[in-house]
């Protein structure tokens, strides 16, 4: 019993070691090129499948190809929100500096993904539904997600004390989590113009295998991109917040 306890506590120690900005900063720097490489590999493969392998849609013609950016952007906008709220919550509970910085680094990426989801949705809706925008449950809840991201960033920017800004932001992020299942299930709960879920865990996908592959490859590309940019931004945030510390002044890139 005591052995198990020792093991788990040493494992926790290891994780907390990386929660220190001074050890995470160089580690993140080493990981970034790998995530960019994965982004490019998945992006090239995904675009190739999207345009040259996936067959034309029987109903929507070539216009359906917008799905290959629309669905990944929408998935990532919801997923990043959950990850951001989890980091913010961890920061609130354990009072770890890095967690709050991670949440702050992810917010703009999530906001851009929500914007891209709405933008590509508008350019898909216009030819298929005849309207750029409708006040429908799916579209409206996604718009609220964009506003939650913007609200999180604006709230953090408006409070001068960094620790208090982190706490206020974390509470906003955690309350906003309720919106994510609303977006996801909106097509089931309400009558809506928006089509149902493209991929379901419980039933076979209702689309050609190649279309599904294109979508998954593009989603992986967006995912790797989010990690790469998130790590890049968290490194900038670490330097900004830790500017007064000795370890930052001893970094190779800072030394004159």
């Amino acid at each position, binding site marked *: 019993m005591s052995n198990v306890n020792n093991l788990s506590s040493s494992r926790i120690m290891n994780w907390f070691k990386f929660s220190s900005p001074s050890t995470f900063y160089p580690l993140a720097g080493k990981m970034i090129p790998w995530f960019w490489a994965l982004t490019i590999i998945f992006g090239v493969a995904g675009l190739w499948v999207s*345009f*040259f392998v996936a*067959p*034309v849609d029987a109903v929507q*013609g*070539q*216009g359906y*190809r*917008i799905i290959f*950016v*629309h669905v990944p*952007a929408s998935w990532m906008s919801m997923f990043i929100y959950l990850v951001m709220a989890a980091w913010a919550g961890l920061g609130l509970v354990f009072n770890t500096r890095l967690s709050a910085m991670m949440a702050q680094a992810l917010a*703009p*990426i999530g906001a*851009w993904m929500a*914007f*891209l989801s709405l*933008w*590509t949705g508008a*350019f*898909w809706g*216009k*030819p298929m539904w005849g309207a750029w925008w409708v006040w429908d449950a799916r579209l409206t809840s996604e718009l609220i997600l964009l506003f939650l991201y913007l609200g999180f960033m604006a709230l953090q920017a408006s409070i001068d004390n960094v620790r208090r800004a982190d706490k206020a932001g974390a509470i906003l992020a955690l309350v906003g989590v309720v919106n994510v299942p609303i977006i996801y299930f909106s097509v089931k709960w309400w009558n809506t113009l928006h089509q149902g879920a493209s991929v379901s865990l419980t039933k076979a996908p209702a689309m050609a295998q190649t279309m599904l592959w294109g979508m998954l490859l593009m989603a992986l590309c967006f995912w790797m*991109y989010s990690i*790469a*940019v998130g790590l*890049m*931004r968290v*490194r*900038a945030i670490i*330097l*900004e917040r830790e*500017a007064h510390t000795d370890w*930052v*002044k001893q*970094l190779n*890139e*800072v*030394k*004159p």
Partner: protein
Amino acid sequence: MWNSPAEFFAMGGYALYVWCSFGVCALVLLLEPLAVRARHKKIVQRLQREVIAEQFDQKGGQ
């Protein structure tokens, strides 16, 4: 599937919608990392100036 580049770019009549979607996505995914890199560069330069100023201060005191 595509018989000519022109047919590819026409996207079966959906060119405006398809290329505006993919184009804006590409633009955003390109500009965001550039903005983040500029932010990182800015803070590194500020820190470099601070370190130089500190060294100058110490030398001047002796």
